[in-house]
């Protein structure tokens, strides 16, 4: 019981002590350095911040306070939201939260033309209900200390207020330390290809793609070289936008990284991808020259390759400076490279298959070889020839959708011939033989000997032979309809892959563009649908043709 009484008394005493220490504390610094440097002299016509920090503690109610600043002669405060600015003074009304409150603000003070050198004093007063805090700040002013080093025409009077600070130059790309790599082309930003991001991450064992991390990773850094002849100290807003060079309109491509913490206005502002711009806050620290290394964030889903104008806007304190520089955005086409790499891989395998071609010819005998040759002739005359002659006409009429018509030949007819031949001669290599003869016919008759032709044929041969081998087509004793339906679908899927690889190759080698939906449509209709139908018809035809073989 005695112990309890002692504790209670101690607690009450400590509470009383706290109440006794309750109050307000005001801090006012001018010129305030964002880097906490101590500055004693204000130089000619500069704009420097006055920092006021009011802390209230242990007052169990909300309080109202009036903040007023009395400025020395020749000094004026720049307009700011929440402040009433009058000549020679400025005031604001602050509300202090109960128990503990911290209110702070920066008010920019500018030395006018009328200000004369000498010792100056500034008075900051905060008045509450029953309390008053006052602080007098002394500083030196040197009007001739630093002036704008700009060539001036005698007849033209320069408005010094417009030259507090300005953008000297914008350089990109630079590394995170602001060093320019002379090997990298100036004004060209390479954007990574994120098409295979998910696949890449899973292969690396990183699991699902963290798109937030991808978007928060800068695509490039730029070096913003600022000049600050009047040695201003202030926070400025930086904004980078992409402009269409022809229309001058802002286009999509840049984004702002997500917030670094939960407090709005801290670091990067705004949510990712809300605006087509990269924004940041930068602070002038009173040096005559200052360089900023700023990251550029790109929306990987929206950015397009091409020639842009990069508009850099820096604003603050009622001033805005804009500089525009040419910018080229180039994408790394990893998907195209992958497709070409796959095609080369297929080419190497095909070279191996070609070595075994003679063996295949002997295994099917003269009759089989002649059958393959005649099928290849039909394939050439019935598919390649009309596709070359009529294909161009359909292509001219229907443009990119012509493949849906010509696909009836190259999809249905082609697979009809292939599967019916394979039903008759079910041996590995027969397909290779057919494609090789067809390719050579096309080369000899039309002069179609080209690297793309070779690579494309290789992909056809390797993918189709591999799928047939994997499905057990060559080992199965009897080909029943159910099994052949599965094979037809499998061949359709294989053709979808072939279509994709070959279109990517075309895009890579011929620098063409095709939309994703277009590639998907081709893969589904021309690849999967037409080829599966062709394969199924080919099975039915091949089964009937067996009767002819056994005659």
């Amino acid at each position, binding site marked *: 019981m005695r112990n309890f009484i002692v504790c209670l008394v101690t607690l009450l005493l400590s509470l009383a002590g706290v109440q006794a220490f309750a109050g307000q504390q005001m801090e006012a610094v001018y010129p305030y350095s964002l880097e906490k440097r101590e500055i004693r002299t204000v130089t000619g016509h500069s704009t420097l911040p006055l920092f006021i920090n009011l802390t209230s503690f242990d007052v169990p109610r909300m309080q109202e306070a009036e903040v007023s600043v009395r400025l020395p002669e020749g000094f004026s405060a720049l307009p700011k939201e929440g402040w009433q600015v009058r000549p020679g003074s400025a005031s604001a009304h602050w509300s202090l939260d109960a128990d503990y409150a911290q209110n702070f603000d920066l008010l920019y003070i500018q030395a006018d033309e009328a200000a004369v050198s000498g010792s100056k004093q500034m008075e900051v007063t905060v008045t509450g209900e029953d309390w008053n805090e006052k602080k007098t700040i002394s500083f030196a002013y040197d009007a001739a200390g630093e002036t704008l080093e700009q060539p001036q025409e005698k007849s033209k009077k320069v408005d010094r207020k417009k030259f507090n600070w300005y953008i000297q130059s914008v350089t990109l790309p630079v590394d995170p330390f602001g060093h320019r790599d002379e090997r990298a082309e100036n004004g060209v930003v390479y954007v990574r290809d994120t098409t295979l991001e998910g696949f890449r991450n899973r292969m690396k064992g990183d699991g699902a793609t963290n798109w937030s991390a991808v978007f928060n990773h800068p695509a490039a850094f730029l070096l913003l070289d600022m000049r600050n002849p009047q040695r201003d100290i202030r926070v400025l807003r930086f904004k980078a936008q992409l402009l269409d060079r022809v229309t001058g309109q802002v286009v999509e491509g840049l984004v702002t990284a997500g917030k670094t913490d939960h407090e709005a206005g801290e670091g990067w502002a705004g949510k990712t991808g809300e605006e087509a711009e990269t924004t940041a806050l930068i602070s002038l620290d009173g040096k005559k020259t200052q360089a900023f290394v700023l990251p550029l964030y790109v929306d990987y889903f929206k950015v397009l*390759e091409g020639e*842009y104008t990069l508009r850099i806007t820096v604003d603050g304190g009622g001033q805005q400076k804009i500089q525009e520089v040419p910018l080229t955005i180039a994408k790394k086409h990893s998907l195209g490279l992958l497709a070409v790499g796959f095609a080369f891989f297929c080419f190497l395998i095909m070279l191996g298959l070609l070595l075994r071609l*003679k063996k295949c010819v002997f295994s099917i005998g003269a009759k089989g070889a*002649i059958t393959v040759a005649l099928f290849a002739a039909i394939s050439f005359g019935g598919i390649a020839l009309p596709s070359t002659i009529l294909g161009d006409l359909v292509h001219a009429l229907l443009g*990119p959708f012509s493949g849906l018509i010509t696909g009836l030949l190259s999809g249905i007819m082609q697979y009809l011939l292939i599967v019916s031949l394979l039903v008759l001669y079910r041996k590995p290599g027969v397909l290779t033989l057919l494609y090789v003869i067809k390719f050579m016919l096309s080369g000899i008759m039309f002069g179609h000997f*080209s690297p793309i032709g070779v690579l494309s044929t290789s992909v056809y041969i390797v993918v189709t032979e591999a799928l047939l081998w994997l499905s057990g087509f060559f080992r199965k004793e009897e080909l029943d309809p159910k099994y052949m339906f599965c094979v037809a679908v499998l061949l359709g899927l294989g053709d979808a892959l072939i279509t994709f690889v070959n279109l990517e190759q075309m895009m890579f*080698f011929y620098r063409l*563009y095709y*939309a994703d939906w277009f590639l998907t449509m081709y893969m589904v209709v021309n690849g999967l649908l037409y080829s599966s139908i062709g394969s199924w018809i080919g099975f039915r035809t091949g089964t009937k043709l067996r009767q002819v073989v056994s005659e």
Partner: protein
Amino acid sequence: MSMRQLWEGTDARPWAREINGRTKLIVLFLYAILMITIDNPRSLFILFMLTLLLHLAAGTSFYKWKVMAVLLMLGLWGSMVSQALFFSQIPRTPLFVLISLDTPVLGAVTGGLFIYREGILYGAVQGLRAATMLSLGLLVCWTSDPRQLLNALLAWHLPPQVAFMLVTAIRFLPVLAAETGEIITALQLRSDTQRGRTAIIQHIPYIAKPLLARCLRRAQTLALSVVSRGFFSAKVSQVRQSWRTLEKAGCFAFCLFTLAVVGSKICYVLSEQGFYFGMFRKLYDISKLYL
């Protein structure tokens, strides 16, 4: 001029016909490599014009010029249309709206479909690659007998059995075309509708089976004939066309030139990725300006 005459190379000037098949195939292949390497529109255009000049020099007939012109125009038009639709670079100026972004389903799927002005020009430039290869391919086709090119492949150790199959395919192409005609006539006669008698397109699905059946029967007969005469295992006889030293030297020089172009381009692309070497600066300049 019949379709058959159109693809024959008998009316070309003698100098063009006398060029060895190997030379033609090598030039064709190397030219194709150049066309996928070079990006500069002016260089692409020069290479394209060069193929047209070769046609002039080879004495391509007026009728063939007309056929080629139609094929080239159609090809270029197709390229322009596709790239005008899918042009994916900035700046781009929409000329027409085919599918608006607001169109239900299609608008969302396609993201809007527009004809872009810059895409038309881009398509024309990129279409030059395919157009050049078409022009050169036709030049080879119109200045060569198929046997000439086959001999070139045989000279490069094409297996005789494969060569035999190739010859068979070439020889039977007109026969197969004639048989297709016969089948279509038969199908037209059997058709019970007035419209079906004339519309070939309706009979196309029914052509395959009888045509393939005839092929199999022909293959049986031919195989018997070939095996009994021992043709299949023997080497295919070939008339060796001399490959002149001048042609060999020309091929070698063109090969070196192509290698230099490809090498230079690879160096330039690598320099863009940071693999920059000061000693190649002139090479980078040439690549940037001309390739």
